[in-house]
């Protein structure tokens, strides 16, 4: 019988220091077959290992439309993430996955999409963004509202530039008041307010949202006011996970196992959840 706890080996092909405490990796499976054929969906997550330190849960930040590698982005906050951040290009780490459910991209075809993300919560949304951009003509208007506490806290800055320069995406970047540097060209203001001003088209609209709880709390009313229904607002929930397999008993929010029936949920589903996350 297969060992469900055994990770695949992946090598760090690229490492980028996104901010003072956030790192992103591009990872390639050591096994040729896996590298060619590894399949996943936007919204899936994995358990990333540093052998000797342990495992940590993050989303797969790349889009499944890109082949041959996966990406992740994480903040160095605890034992595992700090040791992961110290790894260099060429080092081998472990990856278990893909786990969890997915964003139902096909249900978004033909619709207007707004992506709303704050700070370190961009990576899970980025997976969907690239999935959409790689199939751009299947969707209508695409708006991205992304903000962070300060310029220094924005991640994937080089991609923000790329998205800005594309003609088929409306990117609105913002930093919190006081977080702007002297050369800052984006907006200044909290994400929910900036979103309200950007007023993306809610008719036939889908929102993909991820951010710290306080941002979500203030963004949901703005989306509702713009006309988005809770069933059309999609988010990904972060909860303490460990096995990713529905067995260790840690991640449930009421009767929902985040690692199996999540982490992707609609705002309507989240509203039904007990205060357990």
């Amino acid at each position, binding site marked *: 019988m297969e060992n469900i706890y*055994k990770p695949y080996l992946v090598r760090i092909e690229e490492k980028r220091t996104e901010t003072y405490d956030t790192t992103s990796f591009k990872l390639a499976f050591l096994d040729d077959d896996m590298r060619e054929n590894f399949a996943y969906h936007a919204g899936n997550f994995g358990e990333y290992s540093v052998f000797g330190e342990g495992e940590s849960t993050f989303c797969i930040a790349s889009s499944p439309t890109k082949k041959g590698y996966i990406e992740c982005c994480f903040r160095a906050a605890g034992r595992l993430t700090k040791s992961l951040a110290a790894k260099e290009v060429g080092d081998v780490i472990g990856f278990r996955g893909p786990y969890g459910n997915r964003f139902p991209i096909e249900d978004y075809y033909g619709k207007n999409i707004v992506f709303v993300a704050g700070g370190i919560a961009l990576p899970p949304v980025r997976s969907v963004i690239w999935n959409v951009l790689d199939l751009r003509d299947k969707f209508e208007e695409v708006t991205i509202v992304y903000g962070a506490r300060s310029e220094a806290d924005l991640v994937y800055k080089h991609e923000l530039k790329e998205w800005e320069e594309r003609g088929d995406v409306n990117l609105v970047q913002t930093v919190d008041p006081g977080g702007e540097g002297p050369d800052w060209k984006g907006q200044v203001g909290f994400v929910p307010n900036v979103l309200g001003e950007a007023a993306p088209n809610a008719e036939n609209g889908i929102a993909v949202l991820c951010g710290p709880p306080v941002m979500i709390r203030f963004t949901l009313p703005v989306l509702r006011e713009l006309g988005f229904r809770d069933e059309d607002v999609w988010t990904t929930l972060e909860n303490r996970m460990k096995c990713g397999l529905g067995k260790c008993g840690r991640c449930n929010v*009421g009767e929902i196992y985040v690692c199996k029936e999540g982490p992707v949920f609609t705002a309507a589903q989240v509203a039904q959840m007990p205060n357990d996350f």
Partner: protein
Amino acid sequence: MPHMTLDRTDLPSLAQALAGQGRRLVLPVREGQELFYREGADPAQLDLSTIPKNSIKEFLFPKCEKILEYEYSGNDVVIEDVAPDAKPTVIFCARPCDAASLPVVEPLWNWDYKDKFFNERREQTLLVTYACRTAPDEACFCASVGLSPSADQGSDVMLYAVDDATVAVRPVSPKGKELEEVFSKFKKGEVSDEALEAFAKEGDESLAHRKPLDKVKGWLEAHFEDPLWEEKAFRCIGCGTCTFLCPTCHCFDIQDESVFDGGCRLKNWDGCQFPLFTLHTSGHNPRDTQPKRYRQRIYHKYAIYPEKFGKILCTGCGRCVAHCPVNLSLYDVVATAQERAEKGE
């Protein structure tokens, strides 16, 4: 149909015979004031006076188990799969509540992903269950969760002490039926189905005071924020005794331990009663107080698991009630929920 009987005094020899077929032997023995299931215990020390303090969980889901090994090699890592330490085993004179825990947890260990560590041990384990003539402890409440003192769920063979000197044998599973030859060597007589039915009735009567807990799930689903949790769980000291003695609790932690050239990954018992269980690295803890953690225990057992797998994650063995250092009785809490549900509160 008739069932063979053997002399009670032959039980140790029967244990020896089953072990003699190449199985490690686990049986209940006395240590001080209490009984424990122990591996490799002397069959002559077999003690059936009451329910052992530990459950049989540790023989299928050990407290610490290696799941992976790895070696460092420059930038590279070589990982080695680990085979579960699944030796043929006979658990001799398990109690019905312990045996029944196995079919309860099996769906979880096989929910989409199959845990080979549990499965291979399960396959190699023979369960010879000693039915309880009457509930052995005041804390017992197996009848409340759809079981009984002579339930045979999870068992391969059942033993019934129909009187002080005589034990009837009833194979339950195909694995159990294959052992007829071993058992028949000890045959002294026979009893009828009626004798076993009378035995079961006596057991049921000893727990007649235990109410069924069939409305608890519905009540729980409607009362997540009830003051009951603060009220009842004040005394909980978050010690993990209930979780670790429980035959159906299965939560675990994954830990890496290494030396300079490599190491291993381990799967260790963990519990929802500990504050670290759901603590995020950010410092946020969805269950930051003991009443919330205690609520999770009750919900997992009586609402979440039934919702997901159609079974209550509890076999009513009563260990949590008997051994809680502060006498926080899980039965008391769910019986309160049942009562309130019945009153429509």
